């Protein structure tokens, strides 16, 4: 399987001179002050996210993977290096992205349709022109007939679908997803994974997807970035060379599992994961 250890983007198929990357991290570091002194959240992150690719960042809690998304969105500033969107360094909120969080962050007083249109209103875009598109998006994620339902009448999966529509309504090139399925039950997660893939195959947006789940990352991605913590850094980059559309049955096949093993090994080597026999008595688990 093709694999690179640090950064880099295969330049195949891109014209010379033009950057193939929708997003580039160049030596990004992030240190923030706390009461106990400065904490280094990210160090030496160099990574390219090619245009139209689905890239996942997988790592343990506190490895700074969500911070990477916040830096990309321009909601936080890095203390070292820089983040580029296309050729422009990020310095503040970006116009051309959509964000989905772990919590659906829907407004209880708005209907599904109006929650999707919130993005349009906040961006001061002409609402009338986006109404039909909002309805179409809800339709495409299986929420036809629920346009006028309120969030409290809907299940967690349905709510998160609305949040995804809201992130796509203004047709951004870049979709940032921060553990979007983390709060859902296992069955709903599987369904959402399949539906997100279908949506991505249709729209081919650049996606930066943060997750805890190794199978989820492999299933969805062209490339999985494996991060480890203290401070957050890239340990390995794994290109996923599986045919699309991918189906749930594939997750039990040997090829899929060999990817799982590769990523799991990184965490075992770093002490994030430990198998029973390696745990010595008296040694504390991290």
């Amino acid at each position, binding site marked *: 399987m093709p694999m690179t250890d640090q950064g880099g983007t295969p330049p195949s198929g891109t014209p010379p001179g033009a950057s193939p990357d929708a997003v580039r991290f160049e030596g990004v570091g992030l240190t923030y002050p706390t009461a106990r002194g400065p904490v280094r959240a990210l160090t030496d992150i160099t990574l390219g996210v090619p245009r139209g690719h689905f890239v996942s960042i997988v790592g343990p809690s506190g490895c700074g993977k969500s911070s990477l998304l*916040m830096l990309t*969105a*321009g*909601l936080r500033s890095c203390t070292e290096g820089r983040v580029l969107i296309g050729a422009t360094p990020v310095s*503040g*909120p*970006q*116009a051309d*992205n959509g*964000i989905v*969080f*772990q*919590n659906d*962050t829907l*407004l*209880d*007083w708005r209907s599904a349709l109006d929650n999707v249109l*919130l*993005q349009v*209103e*906040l*961006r*001061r875009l002409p609402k009338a022109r986006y109404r039909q598109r909002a309805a179409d998006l809800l339709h495409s994620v299986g929420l036809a007939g629920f346009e006028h339902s*309120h969030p*409290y*009448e809907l*299940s967690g999966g349905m709510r998160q679908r609305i949040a995804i529509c809201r992130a796509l309504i203004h047709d951004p090139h870049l979709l940032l997803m921060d553990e979007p399925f983390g709060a859902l039950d296992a069955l709903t997660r599987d369904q959402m994974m399949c539906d997100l893939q279908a949506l991505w195959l249709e729209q081919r947006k650049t996606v930066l997807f943060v997750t805890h789940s190794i199978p989820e990352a492999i299933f969805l991605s062209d490339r999985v970035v494996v991060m480890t913590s203290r401070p957050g850094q890239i340990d390995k980059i794994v290109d996923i060379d599986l045919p699309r559309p991918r189906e749930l049955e594939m997750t039990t096949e040997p090829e899929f599992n060999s990817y799982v093993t590769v990523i799991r090994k990184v965490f075992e080597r770093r002490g994030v994961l430990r198998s029973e026999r390696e745990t010595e008595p008296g040694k504390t688990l991290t």
Partner: protein
Amino acid sequence: MTEPKLTRTARRQRIESFAYPAAALVLAIAAWELIILIFNIQAYLLPSPAAVYSSLTGQASYLASESVPTIEEVLLGFAVATVVGISIAVAIVTWRPFEKAVYPLLVASQEVPQIAFAPLLLVWFGFGLTSKVIIAFLIAFFPIVVNASAGMRSVPSEMLDLAHSTQASGFTILRKIRFPFALPNIFTGLKIGVTFAVIGAVVGEFVGSGNGLGYVLMTANGRLDTSLLFAAIIVLVIMGLVLFLAVSMLERALIPWHVSQRNVVTR
């Protein structure tokens, strides 16, 4: 949203929610009457419910006309408290230096018994309407500020991240997200505030006034006319309840989406 059709259980629960307190009230009144009979308590100490009732009906027009200035003071004081309270809450939430400078002082100011200023306010603003409105305002406004600012501050950080990612202005975020998000808390503050405004107005009338229900209480007390005193208290209770219910109805109308306002959750 259409009102969902009530099931038989829901209808029974609704009836019970009125029937139980009503029964308890009737029992309490009966006990009151009984205690007076058994212990032979003098009317100037504690009037019987029957005597209170006859004061209430016999002096109905007097009580009604004295209610007018009190209601005016309460409504004006409450209105000013609402406008000023919510404005200050908005400033606290949107402007950091203001929060740092004003919020601690505001909290500390609650250790000052505002009622103690009532005599001074009378000196400054006279015995008329203004001094009572100010006292009602002073007491009512604090719960409104505290609840409104707490509500606007409790917007989840991810929600704000999302809003900031759209490059929306602070005012837009306030109007579309923070304010509607805080409405349940704002109404909690308003419900406390309206009750407090009644207290403020009556205290103002105690300290110096020629009319109003507070004045009725003082004069009835002076004449040991305890049945009129109780009648005036009952009018005040009714006034407070009506105002509270009015705010509650407004709350129901404005935030049907909130968890506290939902009868039936369909899933």
